[in-house]
């Protein structure tokens, strides 16, 4: 089984459904411990994600970017799943919309609203902005 040609089967799952699946050479995501790159035959892994943009390098040489506001990544038997209730593919995010959401959340924070909802809103929006920017910059 240990061949470099074995692709990783990647699934990106949000609460609303399976939003992306495909074969990949590498998946990079940020966990609570820092960035982790997963390639084929990685040992079984389960890590908590921090809000940000995860990257999937497909076998066709494309780069897919996923905005997550938490959730986790699990790896086992060359299957990778990125699970986050609010996960979104960067190509489906409108940068301007995400930016205005972020501005709204920032405004609320500046006004002293530090409720969990506002924090989550802020993290989600900033992850989406980052993902959309990443997608726009190199693709």
């Amino acid at each position, binding site marked *: 089984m240990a061949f470099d040609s074995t692709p990783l089967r990647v699934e990106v799952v949000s609460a609303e459904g399976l939003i992306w699946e495909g074969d990949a050479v590498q998946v990079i995501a940020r966990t609570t411990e820092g960035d982790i790159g997963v390639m084929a035959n990685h040992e*079984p892994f389960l890590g908590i994600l921090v809000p940000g943009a995860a990257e999937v390098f497909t076998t066709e040489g494309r780069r897919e970017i996923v905005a997550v506001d938490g959730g986790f990544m699990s790896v086992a038997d060359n299957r990778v799943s990125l699970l986050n209730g609010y996960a979104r593919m960067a190509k489906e995010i409108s940068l301007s919309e995400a930016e205005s959401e972020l501005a709204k959340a920032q405004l609320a924070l500046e006004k002293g609203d530090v409720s969990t909802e506002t924090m989550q809103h802020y993290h989600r929006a900033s992850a989406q902005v980052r993902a959309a920017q990443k997608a726009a910059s190199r693709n």
Partner: protein
Amino acid sequence: MSATKKITKAMELIAASKVIRAQQAARRALPYTRELNRAVSALATHTRNLEHPLTTQIERPRRAALLVFTSDRGMNGAFNSNVHKMAGQMRQRLEDQGLEVKRYMVGRKGIGYMKFREIPMVQSWDGFSDAPTFANAHEIADVLIEDFLTPYEEGGVDEIHAVYTRMESMLTQTPRVRRLLPLEVVEGVTELGELDHIPQYEFEPDPETVLDELMPLYVRSRVWFYLLQSAASILASQQKAMKSATDNAQQLIETLTREANQARQAEITQEITEIVGGASALAEASAEN
């Protein structure tokens, strides 16, 4: 009457199209639950004891909560009364065990039901019963988790039961009671037992923290499941109710048309009899002259 029939027919068609969408939404949410279950089972096999505040059963529970999923609007037959009946039975059972019962309501109809009877609710949510979003589930779940983690003395609850309606098919929707908290994660563990090998997982940052993060996600996904199932059931009941309303209207139209025809017929007969009577009276009168 035919105006009423047109309205109910339209509502039936709208519900029919929405129910398909709701069913699709419920199906699409399955991978999320599946992945979560898989992760929890992976954890369960590694950390020897899956002990977590959210899975710990309190030895002598004193207060329980009922989370009841009703609809925002009526026109769906016996949907809400079935849910209330089920919730009532569950409340009775809990009270028989000596537990105090607190209520959480989802859906305007349920809230109205409680208010009318002046039964206090801890919290209620409405406005999304037929098209819930994950954010709704998130909000509800987080409130419940917080109240569950609050000790009894400070007003917390020791167990939480959910009353929702399961969408069996377009024809059957059954109200059900499920314990939401403390969580039972047994199913996932047995599932993993079927695998021939158990992979050695690496956890980041560590199994305990991963478990801490996973448990609330698990609760949210349960609530999300209940919301989606109830939404599909609401729409299916609505379609059914509106279909029978349309059929009734149709029947009424037929009976009323028949009655109207009969009345008209009777009137015509009456007139003819009068004319004939009048004519013969005239004939008689002229014959006498």
